[in-house]
């Protein structure tokens, strides 16, 4: 069975670990994590995830900078992204939704809800 590949890019290492642990309780998921934008971009090209969970407020490179670079790179341009942030900022949401047609979720989010949202994005992209 082809596992659904998820990449989590978030500077909170514990959050990355726990989301990975929760998603991998379901054997149909395989999860990789990166704790900064640069590593995340490299991993996105190598790992070729079906979906990326991307934190917005990160040091060095923000989630939106990561997203912009991904959308300019042919290797990552088509990967759907779920933006995740502790900041419920209307501008962020509009930017995520209108500019990139990406899903924007607000932390804290529980595991069942996050998984449901990931599956929703994957289904929309025809990945089951």
């Amino acid at each position, binding site marked *: 069975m082809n596992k659904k590949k998820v990449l989590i890019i978030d500077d*909170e290492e*514990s*959050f990355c670990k*726990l*989301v990975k*642990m*929760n998603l991998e*309780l379901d054997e149909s998921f395989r999860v990789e994590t990166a704790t900064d934008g640069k590593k995340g971009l490299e991993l996105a090209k190598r790992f070729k995830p079906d979906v990326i969970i991307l934190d917005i*407020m990160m040091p060095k490179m923000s989630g939106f900078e990561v997203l912009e670079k991904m959308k300019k790179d042919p290797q990552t341009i088509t990967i759907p992204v779920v933006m995740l942030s*502790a*900041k*419920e900022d209307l501008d962020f949401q509009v930017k995520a939704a209108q500019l990139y047609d990406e899903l924007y979720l*607000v*932390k*804290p*989010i*529980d*595991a*069942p809800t996050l998984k449901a949202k990931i599956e929703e994005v994957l289904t929309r992209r025809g990945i089951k």
Partner: protein
Amino acid sequence: MLDVKDIRDSLNKFIIDPLMVVDGQKNICMVNEALRYLVGYKEGELVGKKVEIIFADSEKSLLKKSNVEKLIGTGTILNIETYYQTKDGREIPVLFSSSLMRGQDDDDSWVVCTARDITERKKVEEELRAAYEQIKEAQDQLVQAEKLNAIGLLASGVAHEVKNPLGIIIQGINYLQAKFPNSKGDINNTFSMMMESANRANRIVNTLLDFAKAKKLEVKLEDINTILESALELVKANIKFENINIETDKKKNIPRIFVDKNRLEQVFVNLIMNAVQAMSEKGKIFIRSYDKVLSEPKQGISGRNDYFKAGEKVLVIEIADTGEGIPPEVFKKLFNPFFTTKGLHGGSGIGLYVSRNIIDLHKGLIEIQSTEGKGTKVSIFLRVPKERRQNE
């Protein structure tokens, strides 16, 4: 050459301050024209009368035994602010002084009373006091606004820092629940308590964020009763109502008005939750909605620009409880941000503050009536625009 009578007549006529002479039995023996003019009596109407006729009802204490004794003891009373009363009942502020004129024996004494009309001075003092109050209020509002602005900035900064660890806690609890799916008793209860606490912390952070935001309203033509129902459903989903009876009386076909549904729902949820929490064990909550034309102007208790004119049509939403009521010392602090009587397990103390701000944004007003030991009724008044009235 002037004789004594001429001098007395001249004094009577030309002394500009009101003057009277009173004998030992408190009878008025003599008054000058200035006094008659001040209190509105004609010549002959005061002489022979008891001196009480001159003093305003609230000031009769000046004639108390202790004051009379002081006068006899010291011989003078100087510059006391008091009130004279005119023939037609008006009170005039005066600066009162008196001196004792001793005769040959105790029965042969008189008191000479002079008074200066200080109406103008009082008026200026009152204007100054009002101006001072206005400046003080403006300064308080400025300080409050700055304080709230600082709290807002702090809240949004802290919110981000708190939401990240909360996300980790919630994901951690989810993982443990998944790893121990058959847990019962204490373990299961512990998971539930941890999750509930994390969710509560998140709710508090969200409320703080609401407080920090100066959100604009997203208004649409809405049915208030529908919003009330959805608020009630939300509360019912979160609170056990085992011993609390809820009665609703929503008037059908009340006019739809332009409101922000979500923000108004937030207000109703806050108020219903307050009503629930006001009743420690059991009681009743009455929720009522109706429209009416105001018979008199209505001023909100917030003392801001929330008022309605007589004749305006309004929607009224009432949420009443049979709880403990609000003590007077608490009542005046109700709308202060971060003021709560609910302790650690209650709210954050900004529910009513946020609610009032939302109603303010809708140009409505909140009115609270409370009787200790009986309960509290919160009424919200929202304006029905004239064009809506024409379309009805």
